[in-house]
C-alpha cells in the first residue's frame, strides 16, 4: 500500500497544481485585480502564506451554496453589505471579532476609525462602491449627452441598447429614480406592491432594448464593443477602463446606488485563522488606502483618507471619482440593507419571472 501511496503522491504532484493556503472569492475583473494588488500581494510578502483569488459573478450565493452543501472551499469572500447581514442572520458566516481589527496609525481604535455601519457582526468593509451608469462619449454629442437617471430610460431622446445588471437589487431602485422618484423616497415606494409594479413597469419600457449582464467585467466590454449605448456598471469598472485603456467612458452619478463591500468568512472555512488574519491585514488603514489607490472605490476608514489618495498612475486624484464625493451625492441613494435583507428573495423571484416572460 505504501508503494501505491508514494506512486499516487508522485503522480499528483506531477499532475496537478498545488493547493493554495487561503482562497479569496471575489468579483473578478478590474476589481479582482485591484484586490490582488492591494491586499493579496502585500499579504503574501508580509506573511509568506499563499493566497489565491477565485472569481464569481456574485460571491454571496456561491458561498452560501458551499456552506449549505457542507463543502466550503473559500476562506474569505467579498459580498455586498445586505448579503453580509443577511447571511450572518442565516448562520452562514463566522462572526468577526472587532478587537482583531488593527487600530489607526494614530492609535484610534478600529471601531471609531471605521465609518458608522462599516463593521458588522460578521463582516468588515473593504470599500464603498456604487452602481452607476455610463456611456461612450463618442456616441453622444457633448451638448446632448445623458445626465440624469431619467435619460437612461429615455429611448426616444437617447436611442440605443442599454446594459443592466441581471438582478433585482439596485436595478429596481434605479428604475424608480429614473421614473422621477427622489432618492429619499425610493424605499418607501418600493415597500408597497404598487411601488414594485411601478419599478417593473419602468423596466418594461426599455425591456426590448436591454442587454443583461451578470459579471462586473461585462459592462465595460459591452460599451467598448459598441454592443450598448449606455449601461449600468460598478463605478470602479468604468473608471478602470477609462484610465487603464483610455476608453472614452463618462460616468453619470445621478441616481447612483452606493454601499459598502464587505469581507466575510464562511462557516467551515478550511483556513479560519488565516482568513481572519487576512481580513485584519487587508482592512487596516494602509490596506484600505492601497485598495483606493487601485480602483475608484472609497475606503471606509477615516484614517485611510487622512492624506489625499492618488491613483496608481501617480497623478490622478481619486477624491472626485469616489461615490462619496459631495458632488456625486446630489441625487444618490444609500442601498438599504434593511430593505434587501427582508425582500431579496421575493423580489429576485419576481424579477426572474418577469425576465422570462
Amino acid at each position: 500500500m505504501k508503494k501505491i501511496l508514494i506512486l499516487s503522491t508522485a503522480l499528483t504532484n506531477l499532475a496537478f497544481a498545488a493547493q493554495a493556503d487561503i482562497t479569496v472569492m471575489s468579483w473578478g475583473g478590474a476589481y479582482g485585480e485591484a484586490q490582488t494588488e492591494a491586499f493579496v500581494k502585500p499579504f503574501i510578502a508580509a506573511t509568506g502564506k499563499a493566497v489565491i483569488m477565485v472569481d464569481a459573478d456574485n460571491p454571496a450565493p456561491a458561498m452560501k451554496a458551499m456552506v449549505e452543501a457542507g463543502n466550503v472551499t473559500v476562506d474569505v469572500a467579498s459580498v455586498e453589505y445586505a448579503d453580509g447581514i443577511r447571511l450572518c442572520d442565516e448562520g452562514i458566516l463566522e462572526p468577526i471579532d472587532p478587537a482583531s481589527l488593527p487600530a489607526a496609525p494614530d492609535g484610534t481604535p478600529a471601531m471609531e476609525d471605521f465609518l458608522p455601519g462599516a463593521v458588522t457582526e460578521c463582516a468588515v468593509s473593504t470599500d464603498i462602491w456604487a452602481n452607476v451608469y455610463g456611456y461612450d462619449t463618442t456616441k453622444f454629442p457633448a451638448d446632448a449627452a445623458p445626465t440624469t437617471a431619467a435619460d437612461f430610460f429615455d429611448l426616444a431622446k437617447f436611442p440605443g441598447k442599454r446594459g443592466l445588471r441581471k438582478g433585482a437589487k439596485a436595478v429596481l431602485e434605479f428604475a424608480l429614480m429614473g421614473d422621477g422618484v427622489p432618492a429619499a423616497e425610493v424605499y418607501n415606494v418600493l415597500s408597497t406592491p404598487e411601488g414594485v409594479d411601478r419599478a417593473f413597469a419602468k423596466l418594461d419600457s426599455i425591456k426590448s432594448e436591454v442587454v443583461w449582464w451578470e459579471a462586473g467585467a461585462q459592462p465595460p466590454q459591452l460599451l467598448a464593443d459598441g454592443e450598448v449605448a449606455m449601461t449600468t456598471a460598478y463605478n470602479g469598472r468604468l473608471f478602470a477602463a477609462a484610465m487603464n485603456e483610455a476608453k472614452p467612458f463618462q460616468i453619470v452619478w445621478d441616481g447612483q446606488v452606493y454601499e459598502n463591500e464587505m469581507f466575510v468568512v464562511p462557516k467551515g472555512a478550511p483556513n479560519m485563522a488565516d482568513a481572519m488574519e487576512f481580513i485584519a491585514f487587508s482592512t487596516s488603514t494602509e490596506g484600505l488606502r492601497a485598495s483606493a489607490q487601485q480602483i475608484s472605490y472609497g475606503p471606509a476608514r477615516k484614517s485611510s483618507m487622512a492624506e489625499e489618495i492618488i491613483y496608481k498612475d501617480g497623478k490622478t486624484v481619486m477624491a472626485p471619482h469616489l461615490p462619496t464625493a459631495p458632488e456625486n451625492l446630489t441625487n444618490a441613494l444609500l442601498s438599504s440593507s434593511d430593505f434587501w435583507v427582508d425582500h431579496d428573495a421575493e423580489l429576485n423571484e419576481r424579477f426572474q419571472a418577469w425576465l422570462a416572460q
Partner: protein
Amino acid sequence: MALPTYASPLERAWYYTYLVICGVVFLFLIAPILIVIPLSFNAEPYFTFTPKMLTLDPEGYSLRWYDTLLTLGHPTPDAVRDSSWWSTVWERATWVQAAKNSFWVGLWATVLATTLGTIAALGLSRPEMPYRRLIMALLISPMIVPIIIIAVGMSFFFAKACVAPDSAIGAIFGVFLSDKGCLANSYLGVIVAHAVLGIPFVIITVTATLTGFDQSLIRAAHSLGANPRTTFFKVIMPLILPGIISGALFAFVTSFDEVVAVLFIAGPAQQTIPRQMFNGIREAISPAILSVATILVIVSVLLLAMVELLRRRSERLRGVTPR
C-alpha cells in the same frame, strides 16, 4: 450524384439550386470554426476584422493574444523571458494550469472509461448476455440524460461521498480527494464524472467493432490451447484495438470539452480549459478566447485525422470493404 441525361431544364435548375443549398450548409458548418483562426491574430481587442486586417496590413495582425495565454496569472509578466520566467509560466500561468488539469483529468477519465467500457463491451456483444437491451440502455444513458441533471445529482452526492482522511482508503486516495476527503472539489470527483460521460462513447464504438467480430475465432483459440488471457491479448485485442482507440479518443474529447460537471463539482484547484473559457466568454470575450479556440481547433483536426485513419485500418482488418 450526376444529373441523368434525361433531366428536364427545370430539373437541371433544381439540381444546381440543390448544389448551392448544400454549399451554403457546408459553409454554415465550417465557417464559424475557420473564422476564429484569423480573428485570433487581431492586433486590436475586438473580435471582428479591422480595416487593417482586411487590407492584409501586417500591423493589423499580432500574436499578443497568444502571449496573454502565457502571461495571465504570471506574477511578473513583463520581466526578461529567461528560463526562470518560463518555469514560472509552467508553474503559475492560469491557462497553462488549466491545460495541465484538462490533460490529466482527461487522461485518467479516458483510462477509466476505456478499461471498464471495453471489458463490458466484450460481455455485451456475446450472444448469451442476459438483459442485454436493458443494460445497454443504462450504460448509454449518460449520453442522453442532460448533463445538468447528472451534474446536479453528483454535486449533491459527491459532497456527501467522503472518507476520513486518516483511514486506509483516505491514505490511498487522499491526494485525489478534497481536503476533507470528499469527492466534491476533488480531482477524483471530476475524473469519475468525466469517465461516466465518456463510457457511452466507448461502449458504442467498441461494440460496433465487435459486431463484425467472428466469435468462432475465440473458440478456435481455445481449442488450440490458448488460455482466456492469451486469447484476449493475442486474438481479440489486435482486432478490436482500432475501436478501443477511437472510443478512447471520444472519451478524451468528451472530458476535454466538458464544463458543466466541472462548474458544479470542481473546486478552485480544478480549473480546466473549458471552464476558463466559459468564464472568459461570460465576462468579456476578448480575442484571447479565440486564440485558445484556434489551438483547440488544431487539436481537433489532429484527433479527427487520427480517428479517420483508425476507422480505415479497422475496416481493412475486419475485411469490411470500404464504403
